[in-house]
């Protein structure tokens, strides 16, 4: 995709900026220039610190690409990989991190079953060992002892973006693009260009209605009707083919990530003004309200949809395409879908790439993304994302 390849070319120019501005330490600079002189490959590898300072764990972004080929095992960065941020992305990275840290043996039927290890990957290696080997990490062959540990914290998208920017953490989880999260802070183009965007999954929010409305025959609405409902221009269900009953339009907290995404995607403007009848801070409250009411409409996270219970989903029609629960809500054109980001800062280090690639693997997508009620990346996007962190970039 054009966007990703542009991002890739960004990596190169960015590294040059780092080199010229001397963001890296003097020693790293020396290493870099010699590496460049040797005709180093042009990809964004920066993980291994030079052998003299391998104990320095926090500044892996500062040192640059001097590991030209082979024999890096002595200088591999095996410090703890840290991530923090959005509670929406957290289930994916955290489940991934838990599996990773446990490093189960092939054939552990709960965590690394033979149906995956042998049939899909044809390996006898432990989980983390297997996925780390391509990046030059040596297998530990021990349970609970992965090649490097992953520690995943939980907060908000803004906190994650800020944390990765200030280099407190390696990976910043965010359910909204970094530019949206930093919109109020006056961060410039230069700052935003330093973020490397890895999309690890897609969240799609179905439109749900109260049981009574679904039973009365409302199965789908158009995007125009949805816009009208959330602007109080359509206030009765009979206007969209339902019973003669007021519409109770439910939304999320003003200014929250979900609210902003809704306005941006449905109305085309993140600052569009909407006036739902009632706003809630959490999906749980929303689910309860839709269940309690007999005239409500809401958009809600996938995990809270109950097709046969109190929150039945309905379809959304856009330009003749019908988006339905269980079919195509992960499509990029569905307005209530959003990418789940795992940001890195100033290129992606070997360690970060290794972990993100783990999340992007077929195993990761199935277990951590689909397993947590999110949508797997469609195949074409998955390929582009994998290329960004491919092990071949780090050889």
């Amino acid at each position, binding site marked *: 995709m054009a966007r990703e390849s542009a991002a890739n070319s960004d990596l190169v120019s960015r590294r040059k900026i780092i080199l010229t501005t001397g963001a890296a330490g003097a020693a790293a600079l020396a290493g870099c220039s010699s590496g460049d002189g040797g005709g180093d490959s042009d990809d964004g590898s920066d993980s291994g610190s030079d052998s003299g300072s391998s104990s320095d764990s926090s500044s892996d972004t500062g040192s640059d690409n001097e590991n030209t080929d082979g024999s890096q095992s002595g200088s591999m960065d095996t410090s703890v990989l840290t991530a923090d941020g959005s509670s929406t992305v957290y289930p994916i990275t955290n489940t991934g991190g838990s599996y990773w840290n446990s490093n189960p043996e092939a054939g552990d039927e709960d965590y690394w079953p033979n149906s995956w290890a042998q049939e899909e990957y044809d390996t006898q290696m432990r989980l983390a060992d297997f996925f780390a080997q391509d990046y030059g990490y040596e297998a530990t062959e021990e349970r609970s002892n992965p090649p490097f540990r992953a520690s995943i914290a939980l907060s*908000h998208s*803004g906190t994650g973006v*800020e944390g990765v920017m200030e280099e407190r953490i390696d990976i910043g989880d965010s359910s909204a693009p970094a530019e949206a*999260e930093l*919109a*109020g*802070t006056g961060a410039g183009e230069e700052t935003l260009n330093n973020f490397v965007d890895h999309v690890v999954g897609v969240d799609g929010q179905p439109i749900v209605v109260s049981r009574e409305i679904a039973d009365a025959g409302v199965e789908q609405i158009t995007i125009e009707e949805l816009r009208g409902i959330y602007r109080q221009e359509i206030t009765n269900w009979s206007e969209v083919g339902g019973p003669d009953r*007021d519409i*109770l339009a439910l939304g999320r*907290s*003003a*200014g*929250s*990530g979900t*609210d*902003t995404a809704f306005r941006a995607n449905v109305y085309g403007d993140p*600052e569009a*003004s909407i*006036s*739902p*009848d*009632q*706003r*809630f*801070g959490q999906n749980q*409250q929303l689910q309860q*309200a839709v269940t*309690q*009411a007999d005239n409500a409409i809401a958009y809600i996270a996938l995990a809270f949809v109950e097709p046969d219970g109190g929150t039945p989903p309905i379809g959304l029609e856009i330009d003749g395409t019908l988006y339905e629960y269980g079919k195509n809500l992960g499509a990029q054109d569905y307005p209530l879908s959003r990418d789940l980001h795992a940001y890195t800062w100033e290129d992606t280090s070997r360690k970060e790439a290794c972990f993100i690639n783990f999340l992007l693997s077929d195993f990761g997508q199935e277990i951590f993304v689909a397993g947590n009620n999110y949508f797997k990346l469609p195949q074409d996007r998955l390929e582009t994302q994998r290329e960004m962190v491919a092990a071949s970039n780090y050889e």
Partner: protein
Amino acid sequence: MSGTIQRRIQAVRAWIDATIAAIVTWFRELPDRIRDFLDRTPADAQAILLVGFVSFAAAAYFFWRSPGQAATPLALFAGATAVGWIRHRGRTAKALTMLASVVTVAILLLIISFLVLHSRDAFEHMGAELLWRLEPPFWEAPSPDGTYSLTPLMVGTALTTVIATMIAAPLGIAGAVFISEMAPRSVREVVKPGIELLAGIPSITYGFVGLTIVNQYFYTEFQTPTIASYFAAGVMIGLMALPTVVSVAEDALASVPESMKSGSLAMGSTEWQTTKSVTIPAAFSGVSAAVLLGVGRAMGETMAATVMLSHTKGMPDPFFDVFSRYGETLTTVIASEAPNAIGGMHESVLFAAGVVLFVSVMLLSIMAQYVEWRMHRKLGGQQ
């Protein structure tokens, strides 16, 4: 009447003059007092005090600037305190208690200045419209240059507070009269602690009951436009403010001197006549203070209101329509939107809501204290 007002104004003027005079005198005498203090304090005590205060100030400064370095001055302060405690116990105790009060006041000042500083952007951006605007849009969050107005939130706070007061004041006063004047001793001993226990129930508990039962009741039975209303929230907040009103009003009624009641009874009044015509009028200031304190509590209540209101901002039509689809107060907007407002105008407006709330609650408690002070003066300070 005008004579009374003039007398009041004169009294206030005299009070201001006296205060200024006291401050001027204090500063004029300051050098003398310092000299006097130095004369009376042994050299080693002076040194300990100096080390203590300087190290405390340094610890505070480092704690702010680089917390890692605060340990050394803090240890020095602890050392100075320990030495002082052994050698000059009285003086050290005096200095420590003084330090504690200074810190308390300093924290208050810091909070106020923090609030005001952070809300400045909002006031500069919106001007008077931040406080008074009757036309939508009221709230274009999180846009940095959108329109923001606190007016609908102030209306929301006013509506819930008025409803809460209408519940808490009559019930609270009636309860206080019963407990203080009518109930037999055995009943009073059970009911009074019970009511004080009521004040200890966490507000989210009230909110949860309100959310699942009261809101739902109004929605299904009376078809309120949303599963939330100012009325339902106001009722719940009123119940929460009830214990405050009862216990303060009861104290006021109990502080009416027994001699006044006995006198009334001796003149042949019945107990009810005594209560109605002697006790309640005598304790009127205290009972008003109780209601005002209850109002302050209702106004600042956050948790229950946050889960019970609809969080949409707008002017009900008419403005006192407590069953409209709108529902947001000064407190709930902060609680529900602060996690999403990182920096920028949105956050500043929330701080402005905090300032408005702070000022209103402060005015209320000053009013309550003034009323209480008058009561003590009127009844000769018998408690």
